[in-house]
């Protein structure tokens, strides 16, 4: 009786670990008793390894570590403290300047109107009054 060997597809699926448990066990059982299929499996595995191990040479400069966040956080903190200090000193200086300045008030002085002619919300020229 002629021996039925495994197909190339089955060998490749076995080599790539693509089979489910039942099929994998069946293939493994056949391989255990068939030297010819074991030899073919080694060839398939060699071809797959040749694909996986293609040598590609791409020179690349070292990948240096970028500036860390911790450093950035410290920089932000220092800037914030500096800004607060500058604001405080500026405010203190300005307030001391205001204390030394004479305050002049320019309160609104309504124009004189003749008591008898005043119309609310309007201004008008007073009639001359004879003071003699």
């Amino acid at each position, binding site marked *: 009786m002629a021996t039925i060997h495994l197909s190339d597809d089955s060998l*490749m699926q076995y080599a*790539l670990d693509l089979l489910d448990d039942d099929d994998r066990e069946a293939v493994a059982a056949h391989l255990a008793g068939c030297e010819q299929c074991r030899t073919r499996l080694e060839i398939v595995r060699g071809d*797959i390894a040749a694909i996986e191990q293609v040598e590609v040479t791409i020179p690349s400069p070292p990948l240096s*570590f970028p500036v860390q966040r911790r450093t950035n956080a410290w920089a932000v903190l220092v800037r914030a403290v500096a800004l607060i200090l500058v604001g405080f000193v500026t405010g203190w200086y300005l307030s001391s300047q205001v204390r030394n300045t004479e305050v002049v008030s320019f309160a609104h002085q309504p124009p004189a109107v003749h008591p008898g002619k005043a119309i609310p919300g309007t201004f008008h020229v007073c009639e001359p009054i004879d003071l003699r």
Partner: protein
Amino acid sequence: MIDIPDWDLYKQAIRGNHLAWEQLSQRHRDRLLRMAWFLTGSVEAARDAVQVAFMELAQKHPRHHNGSLSGYLTVITRNAALKEIQRKKNTVSLDETELLSTEDNPLSRVVADERDRAIVKTIQSLDTIHRDIMVMRFYGDMSYEDIAEELMIPLGTVKSRLFHAVQKVRTSMLEAGYGDNTPE
């Protein structure tokens, strides 16, 4: 020499240990460059994508869940590479095939071995959905489950696409006389 786990190296790096950062980047850089190059077809775009990925790693402070740092880097590098492709498409108006055969980066300068060049050409001739999965699995070192989650497709679809991609590349290798790579 003790092989320090990725996440431990990363923790040391973000505390200011530059040697840890250097070790971490050296551990993953070449693999990520290769993956980004397969996706973009451009050395410059691959470098930019990897640079962006490591920048993001340093600044976003990802948390260590169950995922690997390697997988995280793969995903962010792939996203950066896809953005590079989109940027090129928007600015130069090329189709995808032209993108993958840019004259300023001849294949022979990047891939020395003749058989490897034949493999690369076949991978680059795959349609996007097959190439993407093959690159993520073979050069991005991602599990089938992670790929399915990232692309939001069923696990069976991932496996089926990978099978067809490998089958096509292998057939092409055999036709070109590069088959029978029996391990020593």
